[in-house]
């Protein structure tokens, strides 16, 4: 079954066609990669799906919802959570608070929460319990009350993942999750992403530059170039596909290869 279906999406920035009729279909339960050279439109498409970017033509359907009218804050309510390319945490807050904000869509009545009514307090206790469990799952229990700005890079990445998963999404959108990571950290994060997919049955859509990660975790990838689809398939085949090699390395090198 398809969880997410993107059909003929166009985004133009003035004269620049960032996306020129892109199609992507993400099957439920997969780890799906979105790759392509710089400027291919990966991040633009990612932002269209997560609703941070409007599109002028085409459709994006997610579990029967047409996302065209959705705002950025509506995505998480239907089960799509995202992370950011460069870590984007609530810097003055603790690990626990960051995860709790991730559960905002499960807050219930804002009035009951604000006035500390019994129902609001019960919900708050539930959320705190779940946030602690989420922290435990990501090995963050020891830094629960620490301000996130003071945490090491690797921890911050995990806080961001835990925060995104706190809403219990069915689709997790990752924007270059290993940007700035060394080989060891990349391998570790890859394992974490696979575990999220396997153990929590979360479908993952990942935009990534790092081909070692793509090869290690993706079931299927779509390659974009100049805002168009150029190939689709399993990572092992796709990375040797002539059109993909050409897009990354240029025509002459491809001809000699």
């Amino acid at each position, binding site marked *: 079954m398809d969880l997410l279906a993107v059909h003929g999406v166009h985004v133009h920035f003035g004269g620049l066609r960032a996306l020129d009729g892109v199609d992507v279909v993400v099957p439920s339960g997969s780890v799906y990669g979105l790759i392509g050279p710089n400027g291919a439109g990966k991040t633009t498409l990612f932002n269209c799906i997560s609703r941070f970017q409007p599109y002028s033509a085409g459709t994006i359907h997610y579990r029967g919802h047409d996302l065209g009218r959705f705002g950025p*804050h509506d995505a998480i309510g239907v089960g799509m959570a995202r992370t950011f390319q460069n870590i984007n945490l*609530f810097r003055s*807050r603790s690990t626990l608070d960051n995860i*709790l*904000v991730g559960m*905002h869509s499960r*807050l219930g009545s804002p009035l009951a929460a*604000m006035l500390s009514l019994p129902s609001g307090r019960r919900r708050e206790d539930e959320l705190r319990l779940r946030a602690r469990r989420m922290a435990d799952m990501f090995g963050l229990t020891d830094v629960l009350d620490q301000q996130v700005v003071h945490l090491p890079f690797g921890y911050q990445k995990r806080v961001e993942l835990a*925060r995104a998963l706190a809403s219990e999404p069915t689709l997790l959108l990752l924007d270059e999750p290993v940007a700035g990571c060394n080989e060891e950290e990349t391998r570790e994060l890859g394992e974490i992403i696979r575990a999220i997919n396997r153990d929590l049955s979360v479908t993952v859509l990942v935009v990534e530059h790092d081909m070692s990660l793509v090869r290690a975790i993706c079931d299927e990838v779509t390659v974009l170039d100049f805002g168009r689809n150029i190939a689709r398939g399993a990572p092992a085949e796709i990375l040797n596909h002539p059109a993909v090699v050409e897009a990354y390395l240029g025509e002459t090198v491809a001809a000699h290869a």
Partner: protein
Amino acid sequence: MSERGWQIALTFVAFGALLALPTVIPSFYASLLSFTFTYVIAAVGVNLLTGYTGLVTVGHGGFFAIGAYTTALMAKHLGTSVVPGLAAGALLAGIVGFGLGIICLRLGGAFLAIATLGFALAVGAILNNWPVFEGREGIQLGKNSALGVAVKDVGFYYVGLVVMALVMLTSWSIIRSGVGRAFIAMRDSERAAEAMGINLRLYKTVAFAISAAMTGAGGVLFAHHNRYVSTETFGDTWLSVDFLTAVVVGGQASLFGSALGAAFVVMVPYYLGELRDFAYILNGVALIAVLLFAPDGVAGVLARLLRRLLGRNARAVAPVVDPVSVGRS
């Protein structure tokens, strides 16, 4: 005892002391303190918006005026007293705050500060020129009573104390709830907040409305404390500046800080006596000094001292809104 435990214990001690205080001080000082309470209430409102939500306002004097004139006009035409005035004044200020919030939705940083300043100037101009408000002549309010009981200096002190406690309690309840977390999240990163499902438009306007309602309640008490309102006080923007100064000097995102800061801006001109005009300079100096040397305000400095006394690792805490980011959206 945990840091949180200490905070709660100290809060109880402070309120206990404030409850007992009128029995040992002359009634004149009770009056000065209840005047301070009106500023504290206003500053708590400003803090919710500027300290916690990160939306800088230089216009809350306008909401203070709306509260004050609502109750003054009600007292004059309907003969009402403090409690109905509080309900109506806070409600009206909240509604206007909601409207201003919608208008200012797309603004942040310095642009928002200027827009709110414009709001305060507009309120001042309306008060000065619309005959209903009687300009510099002003409106007299009758003797004060609360729930049918006549109150004088000491009685009014307790009215002020109760309202201040209620406003602080409400503010505290909001801040530690999921809604307060959403306010703070918007301050730290709007994009991430949106991705977590926080509706920026809704939450910003709600923050504006609640903040305005609280400051409006302060204005209501102010009018009854002075038993007089006129554009001498409400015609310019100094109140707005005072409230922002109180919040920044006292400590952004700290209720205790709002109380300290409000006491500072009230007491300085009072103790300067004849030299009270120098208060403007002193406030300015305090503002700059705090932003340069202790961006988390006096409350932040005291919190660090407390932590050191408790022998805890006094880790440097990043200022909630540092001086650099105050000027940006």
